């Protein structure tokens, strides 16, 4: 056992009603703000774990809600806490538990990005304060995270022979998954022809390559592993490993995006996470990939060692990434088709798959689920298992 392997386990998960809230926000309504969505998810995660709020001694608040106000709203005075995104939140929680600074950590996220009309491109593009590449090239009309991935993917196709049709396999597979997920916003299956005939947003990326924008909340409760094992009526889902590697040099001029497509960071994070967990890609029952854009999936397949470098096209065509064939990737439908919860819904989907409660979309004999993200070249990887 090394690092934070098996130090902590997820004992409760919850989320808001994405479909119902999306219906309301599409008609101009606003059921809740970010704190409200977070509160709903919090209550459901507590009930799922069968614990009371007074047992929580650590709080990770998502990036869109101030930490103090979140704790105030939920009535919690923690002894440890931090503001973080989903993947780093899980990492921080495990580190705090390992250090003895907390035993029961609530991770809670709410985002009213749809009803608040958050823009991910154009003037005041969201995220620009943290990632200069999101705003620096605006004088040339170059804006939006989609355009960054379009630029990256065009070069990737040129270097590897990967095609737009190959990329379409991602959107098609994830729609198959979301069609089996009663909580997914997009339930209608699509074909490769639907994909290829859909409009471009930033060529070569089609509409179906883009994630949804919707309101919602997600919460997880992570508990020190020996304490989690004693919980009655709960199957703890253990965190077996975490890895992280950043490519920040040359980030604004897009150097790591265009030269090796972030794969070196993924390889490094993969070495860490599989080393810590003592398992390899071949042991994974499913893979969840942060999919703000479909492009993340082929790069993760290569970077994390599921196929050879430059071999993602062949993997998508011949092995497959769906519940019907191959390695199931983004079994909930992910950001493209279930809900855009900025990596948070991937964590709870991983937990639910290991628990074996996913109904029609359940991966058979699911033992380990691997989560990966490479947001702006920050590769983070987590392995959940029994």
């Amino acid at each position: 056992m090394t690092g934070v392997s098996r130090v902590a386990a997820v004992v409760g998960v919850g989320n808001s009603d994405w479909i119902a809230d999306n219906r309301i926000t599409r008609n101009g309504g606003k059921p809740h703000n970010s704190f409200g969505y977070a509160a709903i998810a919090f209550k459901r995660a507590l009930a799922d774990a069968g614990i009371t709020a007074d047992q929580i001694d650590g709080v990770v608040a998502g990036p869109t809600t101030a930490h103090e106000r979140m704790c105030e709203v939920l009535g919690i005075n923690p002894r440890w806490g931090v503001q973080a995104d989903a993947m780093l939140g899980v990492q921080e929680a495990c580190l705090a538990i390992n250090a003895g600074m907390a035993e029961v950590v609530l991770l809670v996220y709410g985002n009213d990005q749809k009803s608040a009309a958050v823009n991910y491109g154009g003037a005041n593009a969201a995220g620009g304060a943290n990632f200069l590449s999101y705003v620096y090239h605006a004088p040339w009309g170059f804006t939006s995270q989609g355009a960054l991935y379009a630029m990256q993917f065009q070069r990737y196709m040129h270097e590897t022979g990967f095609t737009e049709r190959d990329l379409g396999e991602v959107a098609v597979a994830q729609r198959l998954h979301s069609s089996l997920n009663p909580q997914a916003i997009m339930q209608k299956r699509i074909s490769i022809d639907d994909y290829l005939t859909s409009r471009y947003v930033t060529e070569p990326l089609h509409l179906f390559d883009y994630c949804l924008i919707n309101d919602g909340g997600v919460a997880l409760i992570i508990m020190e592993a020996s304490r989690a094992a004693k919980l009655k009526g709960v199957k703890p889902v253990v965190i077996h490993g975490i890895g992280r590697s950043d490519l920040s040099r040359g980030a604004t001029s897009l150097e790591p995006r265009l030269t090796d497509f972030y794969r070196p960071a993924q390889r490094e994070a993969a070495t860490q996470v599989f080393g810590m967990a003592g398992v390899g890609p071949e042991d994974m029952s499913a893979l969840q990939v942060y999919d703000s854009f479909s492009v993340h999936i082929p790069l993760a397949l290569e970077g994390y060692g599921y196929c050879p470098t430059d071999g993602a096209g062949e993997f998508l065509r011949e092995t497959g990434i769906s519940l019907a064939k191959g390695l199931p990737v983004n079994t909930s439908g992910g950001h493209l088709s279930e809900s855009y919860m900025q990596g948070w819904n991937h964590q709870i989907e991983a937990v639910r798959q290991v628990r074996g409660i996913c109904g029609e979309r359940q991966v058979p004999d699911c033992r380990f689920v691997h989560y990966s993200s490479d947001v702006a070249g920050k590769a983070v990887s987590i392995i959940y298992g029994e």
Partner: protein
Amino acid sequence: MAKATRVLSMYDVPMWESIERGAWALQRCSGCGVFRYPPSPICPDCHSMESEWTPLAGTGTLLSWTVFHRQYFDDYKPPYNAVTVRLTEGPIIVTNLVGAEPDKDCIGRSVVIVYETHEGQQLPRVKYTKSE
């Protein structure tokens, strides 16, 4: 919607002044000679804080491209392109290709910087090198 705006840190100001003069200059590290972009206070390679604003040769190679089919700014009506170019000096820039639209054969082609007036200010863009 609004117009596209520049990010203007104190290190960006001299660069945009050089662009306005039609002679785009970047900081060249006095310690190791490496050019850096965007402008910044320190060389990320050798950590020297000394640099000289050095005009670019104005040449490079096209790395990749995209075409916007959605409008994000008042002053950019789709469809319009954006390209990435590896400058002869080393850094990658994002700009627009003028005189032709990018296509499947454009990656790897040589380009030269041209200055165009956009919203009353000079903006460096690129076109294919004539000999190609």
